[in-house]
């Protein structure tokens, strides 16, 4: 399977804490992307990191990529209740295929 795999499957934290979730994958990639999904809704793109990048920031989000270990991490700092959602990584090997992982369900407790 070319799908990535997120870890942990579920994460529960207090508001204000940081949340870290990881993604491991098996194939070489052109880029890796992180998406968010609120319950029962479509996915929304958060951030894209290319294979030649090691770290990227966007607001309270920080993404790292280690292509030698085929892994990525998403850090959400100073979490808010509104960050409660499922988070997915998507690996993009080449061409037009996007392969999504199984997701991390994040619950931020007010």
């Amino acid at each position, binding site marked *: 399977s070319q799908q990535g795999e997120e870890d942990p499957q579920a994460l529960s934290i207090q508001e204000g804490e940081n949340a870290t979730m990881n993604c491991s994958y098996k194939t070489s990639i052109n880029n890796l992307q992180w998406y968010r999904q609120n319950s029962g809704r479509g996915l929304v793109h958060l951030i894209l990191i290319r294979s030649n990048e090691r770290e990227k920031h966007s607001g309270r989000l920080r993404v790292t990529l280690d292509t030698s270990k085929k892994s990525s991490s998403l850090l959400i700092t100073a979490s808010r209740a509104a960050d409660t959602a499922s988070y997915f990584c998507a690996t993009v090997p080449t061409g*037009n295929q996007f392969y999504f992982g199984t997701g991390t369900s994040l619950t931020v407790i007010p």
Partner: protein
Amino acid sequence: SQTIHQWPATLVQPVGSPLSLECTVEGTSNPNLYWYRQAAGRGLQLLFYSVGIGQISSEVPQNLSASRPQDRQFILSSKKLLLSDSGFYLCAWNEVSGYTGELFFGEGSRLTVL
């Protein structure tokens, strides 16, 4: 601005009945189009993608099919639904460009096969 519409939002169908889910994109030309399925509490499974009218690539052999009769229209179909076809179906698009950018998703169609 670009928008993506997906319908119906909810569908309950008996086993053996046909299926048609429709997706349209507005505000862009010649997009790449995708159908994903998400089983309850699971990740997304890529079903089909299309880079142009009449060009469909299938990722998973099954009793589903896809068609792209117009540039911005993508249809997912089945002649006879199975119980295992239940799930949340998501249509998505992205720009055809020199690199693979982000996907834009519709709001999904929840299918329950009884």
